[in-house]
């Protein structure tokens, strides 16, 4: 199982704070992104803007996602 968290404008667009996905086999972050965008079409307009992190680190699309991982999806940061 993989947990996907949404923050800020991504949370608002998705209408949800998190999503839990069963993953039968390991997959890349890119594959996971595609699955999330398919499940939550409301995120598609933000797609080019979204940042993705895996287990609290920014991640590249090729990163392998394992069961138990926490993925986060959010817009560009604006703290400070």
């Amino acid at each position, binding site marked *: 199982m993989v947990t996907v*968290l949404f*923050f*800020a*404008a991504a949370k*608002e667009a998705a209408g949800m704070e998190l999503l839990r996905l069963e993953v039968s086999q390991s997959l890349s972050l890119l594959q996971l992104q595609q699955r999330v965008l398919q499940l939550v079409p409301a995120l598609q307009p933000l797609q*080019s*803007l*979204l*940042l993705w*992190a895996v287990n*609290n*680190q*920014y991640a590249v699309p090729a990163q392998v996602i394992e069961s138990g991982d926490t993925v*986060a999806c*959010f*817009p*560009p*940061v*604006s*703290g*400070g």
Partner: protein
Amino acid sequence: MIQLTDQPLDYAAITESVRDPAAGAVVLFLGTVREFTAGQQTEQLEYEAYREMALASLQQLVQEAASMYPLVKVAVVHRLGVLQLTDVAVAIAVSTPHRAQAFAAGQWLIDTLKQRVPIWKREHYVDGRVQWQHPSQEAAVAPVVGEAS
């Protein structure tokens, strides 16, 4: 001292925490809530964070800063929740042997925090509009190297 907090920041305590006999310079940076941005009048701001990653990210930032600058001590505290005009959103304090290092380290920390740390600001304008702020798309594509604002 590396913290996220829902309480008003005590920047004097944050500054005290970096004072040290080995330091000849202390620089404190405060990010405060400004009334007008690009002609729009702000009533209040709201900050949200991915707390777990934001804390890890702040810790990593401080480690990197310590490898780049001769920091004696450093403190970074970001406030979350609803803030009013002039409230302090972020306080960064550094102490170093000499002054140029303190200015450089303080500026690097706030610049990099704004590029990397997963915290988001929502403006509440006087005219009733509420809007998430996020920097341009280029910055979004390369959050680690781009300038966020």
